[in-house]
């Protein structure tokens, strides 16, 4: 027998095809539409799943091998970080407020992504996309867990982490922004999920989320976050190629898919950009040492890189989402408007706030020459004067929220930065409010979905946000304190100003112990 001589080594593509799509078969004892019940209801037409181009070709043995190598490295760093009080190496404990926002706002999304991609990895009739989605699903649980593990060490020494990665995302007002984004995607069908998360979020926007966040962590001495962040990003490159392949595949399979895909791209680009407001605010206001401004990151990662992407997709008839015109105006405003909002509501937030100091305001002026001095410096200056007189400004009126993105109505009209923008729609005799043309379009297209939104402010007014057994009729009842208790925000510890906080005092004392002999 000369089997060996006749057997040529299989190439990567050929071998991978045997290892994946060769496994599937068309069922005959059960109808295919019962085995894959979610394949058709969104109206996307797929004629030949075999035309799917695998975006990457990892067999499980290689996956285990490389991922285990990443995990060993990552946990070695986390162990060393914990053993050596690595938390004292950050620039300033103030920085950690950005990390708190990450743990409570982003890590739970990683978890939902894990479940959503498991669903996609079960629901597509094609084997190629299913395998790719399952690998993303398992990567996403990795991200949720490595983030929790990395940040667990901060939780031991700082306030604002103790509620963990899940309790608050279901409850806290500003966290309903990222949560509703993922709930929206997961409650849609598998194809829309892929455009929402696989394409818009992972491909178009992920660089805006992770790269600035992780560079910010690196600049600020946060080795734990840099480590999980860059380690997670190494998976992200695979996820991005999956998102891109998926959209191309849908567009190549049938011309009827184009309008559906375009509608989803428009929707999810806008939804995603609204969520990223929180990242913009983090970059411009929350880092003691800043990497680049939100506007600069937007220009590099969205305008340049996204531009190349949309040029590439133009051959399929895909157009740049209309909302980009507004984004070009917004990039000079949203981070300032968001930080001003959190400053006013610092008593109801799970992290500390502060006013930018002179040096920081000058940096903002330089980065935002068209807007900062004109619209925002005066406001921060006035608040500083009030605070100096002992009249720190807190807004005790709960804001109205956008029915779609759920951000308080704080953004301004595209053509007038002094006027709050709001739009109104009517559905079944009720009025619904949105923050922008983008959100109004989304609402008007699927009102039956968005009227279901669990809006945190409405829910507080309806009395649904108190701990079990709360009696609002007792004397001296303070609804806000009860809401905070339900949120797991410890009043006076987790919230309000950084100046005078426990985090600030502890960090100074511990650093003192570490650097002095007394």
């Amino acid at each position: 027998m000369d089997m060996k001589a006749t057997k040529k080594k299989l190439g990567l593509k050929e071998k991978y095809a045997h290892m994946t799509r060769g496994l599937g078969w068309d069922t005959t004892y059960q109808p295919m539409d019962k085995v894959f019940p979610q394949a058709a209801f969104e109206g996307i037409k797929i004629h030949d799943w075999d035309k799917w181009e695998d975006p990457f070709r990892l067999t499980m043995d290689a996956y285990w091998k490389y991922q285990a190598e990443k995990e060993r490295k990552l946990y070695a760093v986390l162990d060393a970080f914990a053993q050596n009080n690595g938390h004292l190496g950050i620039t300033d404990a103030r920085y950690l407020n950005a990390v708190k926002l990450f743990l409570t706002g982003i890590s739970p999304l990683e978890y939902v992504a894990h479940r959503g991609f498991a669903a996609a990895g079960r629901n597509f009739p094609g084997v190629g996309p299913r395998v790719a989605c399952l690998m993303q699903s398992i990567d996403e649980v990795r991200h949720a867990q490595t983030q929790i593990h990395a940040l667990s060490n901060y939780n031991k020494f700082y306030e604002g982490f103790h509620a963990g990665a899940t309790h608050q995302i279901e409850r806290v007002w500003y966290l309903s922004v990222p949560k509703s984004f993922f709930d929206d995607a997961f409650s849609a069908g598998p194809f829309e999920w892929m455009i929402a998360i696989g394409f818009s979020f992972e491909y178009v926007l992920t660089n805006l989320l992770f790269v600035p966040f992780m560079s910010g962590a690196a600049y600020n001495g946060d080795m734990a976050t840099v480590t999980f962040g860059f380690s997670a990003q190494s998976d992200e490159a695979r996820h991005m190629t999956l998102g891109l392949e998926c959209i191309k595949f849908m567009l190549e399979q049938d011309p009827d898919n184009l309008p559906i895909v375009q509608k989803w791209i428009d929707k999810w680009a806008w939804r995603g950009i609204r969520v990223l407001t929180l990242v913009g605010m983090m970059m411009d206001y929350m880092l003691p040492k800043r990497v680049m401004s939100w506007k600069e990151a937007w220009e590099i990662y969205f305008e340049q890189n996204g531009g190349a992407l949309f040029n590439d997709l133009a051959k399929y008839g895909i157009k740049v989402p209309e909302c980009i015109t507004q984004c070009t105006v917004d990039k000079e405003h949203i981070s300032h408007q968001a930080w001003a909002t959190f400053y006013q509501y610092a008593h109801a937030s799970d992290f500390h706030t502060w006013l930018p100091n002179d040096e920081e305001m000058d940096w903002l002026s330089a980065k935002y020459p068209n807007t900062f001095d004109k619209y925002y410096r005066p406001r921060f200056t006035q608040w500083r004067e009030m605070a100096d007189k002992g009249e720190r400004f807190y807004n005790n009126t709960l804001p109205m929220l956008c029915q779609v993105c759920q951000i308080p109505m704080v953004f301004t009209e595209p053509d007038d930065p002094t006027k709050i923008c709001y739009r109104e729609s009517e559905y079944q005799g009720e009025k619904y409010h949105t923050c922008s043309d983008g959100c109004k379009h989304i609402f008007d297209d699927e009102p039956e979905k968005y009227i279901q939104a669990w809006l945190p402010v409405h829910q507080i007014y309806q009395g649904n946000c108190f701990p079990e057994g709360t009696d609002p009729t007792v004397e001296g009842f303070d609804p806000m304190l009860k809401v905070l208790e339900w949120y797991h925000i410890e009043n006076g510890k987790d919230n309000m100003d950084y100046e005078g906080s426990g985090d600030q005092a502890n960090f100074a004392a511990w650093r003192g112990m570490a650097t002095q002999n007394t």
Partner: protein
Amino acid sequence: MQIDLRTVAIKPLRHTFDHLVDRFGDKPASRYQEGSYNIQQEHIFHYRPSWDADNVLFDKKRTKIRMQDWYALKDPRQYYYGSYTIARARQQEAAESSFEMIEDRGLAELIPAELRQTALDVLVPMRHVEWGGNMGNSYIAAYGYGTVITQPCLYHAMDHLGVAQYLTRIGLVLDGPDALETAKSAWMSCPNWQPLREHVENLLVLQDWFEIFVAQNLVLEGLLNPLLYDHLDADFSAKGGTAISMMTRFMAEWSTETAKWVDAQIKVAAAESPENKAVLSDWVKHYRTATLAALAPIAARAFGEPSADVLADIAAEFNARCAKLGLAV
């Protein structure tokens, strides 16, 4: 700034997150606990799923099984992503060196022809069965409730993909790409494979995720894996087919390990209530009959005449296992 901090002892403010303090007390939590408990959202969801409007995104009602606390179904291996991948990476390294040795030294050519044919006829088409196992477990990972059980089901789904790929590789080693074509056509149309294919397809349309767990992970794997990786493997080794055993070593280890995890789930769920015990027992009885019938022609191909005895042995062992888990079967 480089500071020497090793001499500084700082008393932590707390040891872990609130929900773990509530569950286990204020003490340092393991990475398994931090990465698994309560990380699935539970109460508040914005929109009804378009694909299941009667339920919320994560809903306890997607199975007949009821648990006071779904986090009672913990994984005895305490796998979180890191410990899982590191464990599998070690096993794959061993498997890889076996395959390499067999490929480099041409050991497959030394396997007696009859055994080689048995491996091609019995093991290689099983890659499709494994793919069915992947689909069932992905379903649970998507629609199940509580991370301590959904998480290991995703790992199990990925394991099934890995096993399907090892079986593919066995086909490639023994007979090149043709082996896969032949196995696929046997799976699709050979009479002795049709009962098993029908059974696997029937599992693909189940909706109750815990029923899938029982039908696939407890019953099908509980009967099939001993058949392949215990009985048939013993045959291979005894008759000079050690090279085949080397190539299935991963599966043999894996099925022993995962059976312990499956047992822990069933045991806890059955002990929860008489209702659970009854539902689980009914499922086991139903799927045991169906699985044994589906395996019979394959066992006949693998073992010839004594196949009925082999299956009877396997069934007896399986029944004893179920009895230990508190089921009435």
